[in-house]
């Protein structure tokens, strides 16, 4: 079971992810509402896995991923995307993203991806 940090500006998505992960035995260490907040909480909490939305205000997911990987190259980061963000996904792969999840969420896909990370 993993200790997870959820980074997403959408309350709806954070709540959906939290509900699926907690009901399957994972621990949510905290939530962050933008990339800047996410990087700070990553530093403080050092989670096993971070789920990181790509489209966020202030600091987006791609930039936050780069910052997190600069702090810890081994950090396990799952990028959360809507369909159609192909170019952003390529940027994420180049920046070291470990996995991707697509919205709207599919419970089994989330659990499979997290299982691969831990």
């Amino acid at each position, binding site marked *: 079971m993993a200790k997870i940090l959820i980074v997403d500006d959408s309350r709806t998505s954070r709540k959906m992810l939290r509900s699926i992960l907690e009901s399957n035995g994972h621990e949510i260490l905290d939530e962050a509402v933008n990339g800047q907040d996410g990087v700070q909480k990553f530093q403080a909490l050092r989670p096993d896995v971070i789920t990181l939305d790509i489209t966020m205000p202030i600091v987006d997911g791609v930039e936050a991923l780069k910052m997190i990987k600069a702090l810890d190259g081994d950090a396990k980061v799952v990028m959360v995307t*809507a*369909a159609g963000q192909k170019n952003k996904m390529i940027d994420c792969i180049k920046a070291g993203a470990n996995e991707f999840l697509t919205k709207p969420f*599919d419970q089994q896909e989330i659990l499979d991806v997290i299982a691969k990370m831990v």
Partner: protein
Amino acid sequence: MFDQIFGNYLVASGTITKEQFMDVLESEGKIRVKLGLIAVAEKLMTEEQADEVNKLQSIMDRRFGDIAVEKGYLSDDQVTQLLKKQGNIYMVFVQTLIDKGYMTLEEIDAALNKYQEDQGFTHSDMDALVSGDVDRTVQLFLPANTQLCDKHCGIAIRTFIRIIDSSAYVSKAYLVDELKVEKFAMQELQGDHKILSGFAADGNDLLELANKFAGEEFETVDLDALDAVGEFTNCINGLFASEMSGENVDLDMLPPVFYENPVSITGNQFCVFPIHVGGKEIKFILSIDADIDVK
């Protein structure tokens, strides 16, 4: 969708009562079964395969049968046979109206001809409506036949029907320079095109969308409910951007924006597409390659 459109026309014209219409819809729902369920019942697919195809539909904007064929679960011939078994929803609607004694076939024909005349539709348009083809139905209800507008609205309506409510239907879209709305969630796309799309409604009507998408029971359209509407908009825009990327058109999505208090949307002939769901009207708003302002 045409069962809803024509049924509401019959109610508005006083041909049948609202109660009779609801009674017909209830019976129709019992008769018509989803394609995946028929495929499982016919032992052509497993439940797991049908679930997988249903899930893929929410991120692929394609029909159940098309995905099932692509995955190798069904052949084209099997899909054709399943569609025949499922039956045309409008024909089920007509049959139910007759079976319940609310209208005769002659009365239905006369009402259909009057509807066609009122709407200015051609015979070919009526064939498209009756066939249940959502893409062509959406095109018939759009004011400007621009390719991008058709494509985006088509994805929006199909996704709405698939994820939010299969009984949703549309009325004629229109172009305006200004629209006042009480609640609005929207998202901008930048890149090869400048696009704004979102959903607006008055009072608590957006709850029909927010509650179903988020699986919650918001009581009022507050920022949390608007966040759910924004996430749904994000899914639609993602599907649109995905389809456009296949044509080498690059679009980047910005974070959704919400307006909890009444706003005035001003622009240049942006599209307003009314979607009717649960007795409420939700407006899908789309502006392509034009400046738009929300205050």
